[in-house]
């Protein structure tokens, strides 16, 4: 399902002096089944952008095409469920949306709202709890007895259980420990390999380098750059304006470059970096 933004502008509370601009003339395409990362400073419009994809926000002008569905400023609030079933959304700190008395019921909540029969929803819950790395024993427990990381996994399972085609992630690993972080990111990569479109909002450039295929840079409500992570991290103009920072491997490579190492383009992952170093030490 391809997502396309056409000259989308969004301003909050347009007829009020307390208003603010959320998005300014954003046009872009998010490819089907791709892993897209959106980066940018706090307040640059990332969250506003992704909330348009499942019509939680509607544009002030312009339109968004999600598959064959078109969202315009006039889009009605009725009949949005089919769209929201296709576009799953994991918000920042999703554990704050848990409310049922058992984990199972909470995971089944989404699917049931989207009209999936009770039995199928239960099957989905049993399947998804394992996908997110917890055992089935957790299904009978209260979500409020779990640790923060486990609650996060339950919340993610609750979104995946509706089997959305597109998954939007708003800093899904914020506040997790390094191991949990990697597990969750690997889980989303796996979802992509199963044919889902992934859109990730993040401040972690290493995640972008390791997982994303396309990278979008937002600044001051505008879309400033789109490209592969490799190209964007090598864009000196963006770096000079401090719109992006570099992943660890690229920072290390920059330091090596001062010590007689030469890189045609900055390596952005550990693997690329080690391959380059090996080649430069032994290759000559």
């Amino acid at each position: 399902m391809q997502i396309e933004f056409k000259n989308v502008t969004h301003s909050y509370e347009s007829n009020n002096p307390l208003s603010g601009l959320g998005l300014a003339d954003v046009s872009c395409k998010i490819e089907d089944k791709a892993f897209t990362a959106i980066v940018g400073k706090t307040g640059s419009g990332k969250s506003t952008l992704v909330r348009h994809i499942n019509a939680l926000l509607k544009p002030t002008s312009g339109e968004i095409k999600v598959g064959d569905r078109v969202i315009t400023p006039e889009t009605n609030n009725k009949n949005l469920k089919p769209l929201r079933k296709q576009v799953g959304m994991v918000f920042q700190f999703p554990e704050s949306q848990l409310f049922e008395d058992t984990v199972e019921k909470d995971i089944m909540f989404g699917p049931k709202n989207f009209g999936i029969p009770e039995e199928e929803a239960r099957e989905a819950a049993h399947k998804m709890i394992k996908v997110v790395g917890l055992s089935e024993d957790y299904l009978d427990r209260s979500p409020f007895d779990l640790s923060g990381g486990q609650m996060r996994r339950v919340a993610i399972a609750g979104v995946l259980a509706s089997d959305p085609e597109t998954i939007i992630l708003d800093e899904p690993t914020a506040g997790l420990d390094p191991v949990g972080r990697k597990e969750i990111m690997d889980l989303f990569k796996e979802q992509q390999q199963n044919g889902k479109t992934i859109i990730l909002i993040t401040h972690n450039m290493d995640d972008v380098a390791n997982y994303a295929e396309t990278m979008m840079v937002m600044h001051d409500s505008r879309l400033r750059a789109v490209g592969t992570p490799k190209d964007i991290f090598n864009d000196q103009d963006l770096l000079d304006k401090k719109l992006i920072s570099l992943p660890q491997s690229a920072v290390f490579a920059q330091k090596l470059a001062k010590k007689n190492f030469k890189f045609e383009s900055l390596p952005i992952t550990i693997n690329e970096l080690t391959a380059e170093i090996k080649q430069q030490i032994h290759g000559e």
Partner: protein
Amino acid sequence: MNKLILGRYLPGDSLIYRLDPRGKFLITFYFIGIVFLANNLVSYAFLLLFVFFAVYISKVSISFFIKGLRPMLWLILFTVLLQAFFTPSNHPIWHWAFLSLSKEGLVIAGYIFIRFILIIFISTLLTLTTTPIEISDSIESILKPLRVIKFPVSQVALMLSIALRFVPLLIDETIKIMDAQRARGVDFGEGGLIKRIKSFVPILIPLFVSSFSIAYDLAIAMESRGYKDGEGRTKYRILHWSKRDNITVVVMIAITVVLLFLRSYK
């Protein structure tokens, strides 16, 4: 949630903004009191003039005040119509069954309409030009005499300022939770009454849970910074009573005197 003007603060700068919040707070209540002294056209016109003058020097756009009226519109209409049609009179101009329209009734209805405008405008003026934290400071300062009867003034003041501090936070949290549940297929404001009420469970439970956890974290953070109880703490935000506040008090006394004089004017 964004439509309510009354109770909102609007950043700005003018004479009214710089007044001592305690004075503003008391004067607002005092003014609401003396509105009931007015009893004829001249006195109401005088008060209206004063309120519009206050709005003018506050430099806040009048459209905010008119928006502030909107949520009260039905109450105003209801009261005004009730007065107009149910005032007993010996000389009704128009009359049907138990309804009668008379000159006296219309005049009283008009007065009540003006009274509503006066009270809503002046209280909107207070909240638009005073930050919530200033209001809670002035409440603390005004309640101070109650210490004599062992009323826990500083605890109440702390409660107030924490509550005010968390209003925007909880509104953000509510919007966030609503968005998250919407993304999971909840429709707010659809279906019958029971269904609508039920659709609020997925908001209220997470909201309560997060409020309690915020309260717990905040309490720990306060204790670890040396908070024991309200007593014996110094104050960082100090309110200054200045010359212009004295002038406003004099103006209020003058208004009261003029009003008393106009009352007996026929």
